[in-house]
């Protein structure tokens, strides 16, 4: 693939700073012309097609494969099976670090979940490989499948999420409940969900001796690189991964999963480039999902509607062979000021692919339960849901008692409610109808997501021709890294954005960390910011130490970089262009590296979260039970907004996921076989265009000096939280029926 050449968008108004400008996507032209190259669009000469055969049982072992029948099919070249495959350098069952999850790469005949890869057919054409895989007609020895939240004995996992304690408490829950005037206890269930990025997982792998070229969508170039290196026993510098565009990730392309490794193995086996693309149904198993939960909330409130206790317990599942536990109850740590809070988790093991991170893991599942319960409690107290939330507004983080680094949630409530018209909401449910007779309901939810930071590095350069370069192995899965990070880069090196070459998306660039946790812009942005500052410092050194420069001796006063010039901070009439400085110094370019990392001191001192308030209107057919969301308003405070245009899109997307959580998506598992019966996009419902009403997003001004150098909190995931509960609460308000099992189904509203 040629180096990515981003066509810059039409000229935009800018006022000195790129950050904060609503630029259109710099990769927009490529994307609308079909020229953005996703992994499966690559086709190196001599390439073969690999197709996985997957298990139709959830538990047992493969006893036979009709390899001969598959081989007889014209065009089939090789069949990779547990008995016939390249050896890996290490056992894939070994977890070499906390971000390694076990995968199935034909290491045995064992089947641990439905849709597990059991063989790979490699052929001259896609048609031959596909039919070859069908002809394998596997036979199995079947064992009973563990299915559902009551599949077996429950246990308390050692940690949930990524190293979170399984249990947390502050204050005395039972005393708080005993002292309460009003108590509720409610159980909510959320289903398994699958990321279903529009782009199926894909890999094009090409071995050239020990050198390996990989086209693969990944949210973590360096983690993938490291995992490939250890699995195949090759030096990381022999591997080149290209991932310029991801067709959506949502967490499913974060960590190396089995299928891309099978693609690498297949290419090695046949000694030719190989393309392996998952079929849609194969995405329901080996590439992660959101685990189902059953959450019990017990809440107490005093006569004034102030919380006395908040107890949140979540049951979830993990696979039979690895550990990831949806930290759903942790959603209750940050939002409501109860003097007693307890969160806890337990789990059962089921025959499923290991659940993993899916957009707002824990936060999304926990939020819909918590926000529903808070709504129930407000109703029990006879208080408006917004007033109730304000009454229990947390001035410090409830679970830790730490101050917030910043928290503009009150402004979110105010601005969102005003925009929505919340004050006209009747307290009682089932009070509003539109002129066609539909029940109308208004619901709200509070959104929150932690402001995280990972580690990243960037390289900046300023060249004698007055242009700059910024390099970082960042990932654009749709959130807009190509644009937002370039904006940060432009400001970092004091140049117009069109004068900065911004490189990202390949593994030969500095490590940008993982695109996850809503932290990529903050983390990569901090590295870019710091690399820019470092390169400007080098340039400033050249100028301020040179007697011939108008900036000579300005070292103490300092300089600022703007529009390709260094300007004396205390005297703006004294400045010099980058070109002049570098020409005189006789250097072609100066370069420097910078890093972005969390600040442990600030983290110790402050609770860091983005916040928001989401308001939803639904209409429900009073007799037929069909629901339609007709309006949503979200007000979010997420620190500095790098690009309002892209941020709005991210928040819209999150709100739509929230709506989908409440009303649409659910993987339906056959309770006997453990197979997912709707592993497709026809019956695993995600919202279509007609489901999505006019959406309104308000971004509330928020300056946070503590989260990171740029004050960015991240917006990738927060949109789901709050939104799911807002829609569910609106359904209650419309109908008077409280549905506690999600998604809300028509039959539950047929009263």
């Amino acid at each position: 693939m040629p180096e990515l050449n981003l066509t810059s968008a039409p000229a935009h108004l800018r006022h000195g700073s790129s950050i904060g400008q609503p630029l259109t996507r710099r990769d927009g032209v490529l994307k609308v012309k079909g020229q953005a190259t996703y992994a499966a669009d690559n086709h190196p000469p001599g390439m073969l097609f690999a197709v996985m055969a997957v298990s139709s049982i959830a538990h047992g072992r493969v006893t036979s494969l009709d390899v001969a029948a598959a081989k007889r099919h014209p065009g089939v070249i090789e069949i990779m099976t547990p008995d016939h495959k390249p050896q890996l350098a290490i056992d894939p069952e070994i977890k070499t670090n906390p971000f390694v999850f076990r995968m199935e790469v034909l290491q045995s005949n064992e089947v641990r979940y439905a849709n597990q890869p059991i063989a790979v057919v490699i052929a001259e054409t896609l048609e031959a490989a596909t039919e070859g895989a069908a002809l394998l007609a596997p036979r199995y020895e079947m064992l009973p499948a563990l299915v559902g939240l009551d599949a077996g004995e429950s246990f308390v996992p050692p940690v949930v999420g990524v190293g979170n304690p399984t249990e947390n408490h502050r204050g005395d829950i039972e005393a708080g409940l005993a002292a309460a005037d009003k108590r509720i206890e409610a159980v909510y269930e959320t289903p398994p969900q699958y990321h279903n990025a529009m782009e199926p997982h894909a890999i094009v792998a090409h071995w050239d001796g020990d050198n390996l070229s990989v086209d693969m969508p990944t949210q973590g170039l360096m983690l993938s690189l490291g995992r490939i290196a250890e699995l195949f026993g090759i030096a990381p510098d022999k591997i080149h991964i290209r991932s310029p565009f991801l067709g959506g990730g949502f967490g499913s392309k974060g960590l190396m999963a089995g299928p891309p490794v099978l693609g690498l193995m297949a290419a090695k086996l046949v000694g030719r480039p190989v393309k392996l693309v998952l079929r849609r149904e194969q995405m329901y198993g080996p590439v992660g999902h959101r685990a189902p939960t059953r959450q019990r909330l017990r809440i107490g409130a005093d006569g004034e509607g102030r919380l006395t206790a908040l107890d949140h317990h979540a049951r979830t599942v993990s696979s039979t062979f690895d550990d990831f536990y949806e930290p759903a109850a942790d959603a209750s740590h940050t939002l409501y000021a109860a003097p007693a809070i307890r969160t806890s988790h337990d789990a059962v093991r089921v025959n499923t692919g290991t659940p993993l991170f899916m957009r707002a893991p824990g936060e999304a599942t926990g939020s819909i339960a918590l926000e529903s319960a808070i709504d129930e409690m407000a109703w029990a107290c006879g208080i408006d849901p917004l007033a109730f939330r304000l009454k229990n507004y947390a001035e410090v983080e409830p679970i830790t008692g730490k101050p917030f680094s910043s928290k503009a949630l009150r402004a979110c409530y105010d601005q969102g409610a005003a925009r929505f018209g919340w004050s006209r909401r009747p307290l009682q449910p089932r009070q509003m109808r539109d002129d066609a007779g539909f029940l109308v309901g208004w619901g709200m939810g509070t959104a929150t997501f932690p402001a995280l930071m990972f580690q990243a590095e960037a390289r900046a350069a300023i060249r004698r021709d007055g242009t700059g370069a910024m390099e970082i192995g960042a990932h654009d899965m749709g959130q807009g890294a190509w644009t937002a990070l370039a904006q940060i880069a432009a400001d970092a090196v004091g140049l117009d954005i069109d004068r900065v070459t911004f490189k990202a998306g390949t593994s030969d660039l500095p490590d940008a960390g993982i695109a996850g946790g809503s932290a990529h812009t903050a983390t990569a942005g901090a590295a870019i910011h710091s690399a820019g500052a470092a390169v400007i410092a080098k340039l400033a050194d050249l100028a301020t130490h040179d007697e011939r420069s108008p900036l000579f001796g300005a070292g103490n006063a300092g300089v600022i970089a703007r529009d390709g010039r260094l300007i004396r901070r205390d005297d703006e009439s004294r400045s010099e262009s980058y070109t002049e400085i570098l020409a005189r110094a006789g250097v072609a370019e100066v370069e420097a590296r910078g890093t972005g990392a969390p600040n442990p001191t600030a983290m110790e001192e402050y609770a860091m979260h983005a916040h928001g308030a989401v308001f939803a209107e639904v209409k429900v057919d009073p007799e037929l039970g069909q629901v339609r969301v007709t309006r949503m308003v979200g007000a979010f405070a997420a620190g500095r907004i790098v690009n309002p245009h892209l941020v709005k899109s991210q928040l819209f997307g999150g709100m739509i996921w929230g709506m989908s959580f409440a009303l649409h998506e659910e993987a339906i598992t056959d309770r006997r076989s453990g197979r997912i019966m709707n592993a497709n996009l026809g019956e695993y419902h995600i919202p279509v265009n007609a489901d999505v009403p006019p959406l309104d997003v308000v971004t509330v001004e928020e300056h946070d000096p503590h989260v990171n150098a740029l004050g960015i909190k991240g917006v990738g995931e927060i949109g789901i939280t709050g939104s799911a509960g807002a829609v569910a609460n609106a359904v209650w308000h419309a109908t008077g029926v409280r549905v506690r099992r999600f998604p809300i189904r028509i039959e539950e509203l047929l009263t």
Partner: protein
Amino acid sequence: MKQFDYVRPATVAEAVAAAAQPGATYLAAGTNLLDLMKGGVSRPDRLVDVTHLEGLDRIERLADGSLRIGALVSNADLAHDAGFAKSYPAVAEALLSGASAQLRNAATVGGNLLQRTRCAYFYDTASRCNKREAGSGCDARDGENRTHAVLGWSKSCIATNPSDFCVPLVALDAIVEIEGKSGRREITLDELHRLPGNTPERESALEPCDLIVAVRLPPAARGFAAHARYLKVRERTSYAFAIVSAAAALRIENGKIAEARLALGGVAAKPWRARAAEDVLKGVAPTADAFREAAWRALTDAKPSGDNAYKIELARRIVVRALTLAAAGTPARIPALPASPFASTSGAIHA
């Protein structure tokens, strides 16, 4: 997809002859067949491509006032034919509520009539399914079956027919023209689809080699144009199969229902004509009470086949609503959200 032999006959006679080979099946647009072939549900040895046959893509008004729709007319072309939509608005509305615009552009009238069930156990080749493999059993019976049949099902099969198009068509007494080994014949659409009984693998009255060449709407079908609707409850606002749907068509004279037609979708292995309900409505005023009585009659024989008792009550309510909407009059233009409960943006939805 299994390897197959592809033939493209030039005439209907050649097509019928080409289909005589065992394992042969007709290919029209392929929007259903290719999906089934990709899933391994259908593994034909020969595809007889009928898409290039002459003369099957016409919509013709016949001398007796019937309308003859060629089997290769696309769903979209039919629904967007202004004359058609005006005369048979419930059919156009049903067509436009099905699938997506892309699929409707490709899918044909004949193909839609033979659309296979969306039962997940039929699609899942690792499950037992009497329809897919005669005598293998039915895993849907004790499985995930909240969308399955409540009428006409048997112990062998509880699948439903997913077609929207067929629901108003069966209400309007559509006739299916078939070309087969022994020449042309015709049957009513009601006779085309079979209930499962002990042989759910036999889905239709078609014999091997039979090719649907046209669908005909008899002259009387035009008489309902002023009061005809299709209503479909689903789990997304668009691009989803019906949980339950209904087509209601009324001929109202002097404030009384001279004739009523009613059919249900998503409830049985065939589009379900509710004749008993029609009889109740004949000669009475179009009132809420009458519609409720009709709804009750329409579902008299309904029983849950699994976790789907709610569908019976839902079907009753849909019948009442569809009749109410039909009585209120066909809208001048097909609504923005065809067949959706949310199609009406103003005016009472209540009976």
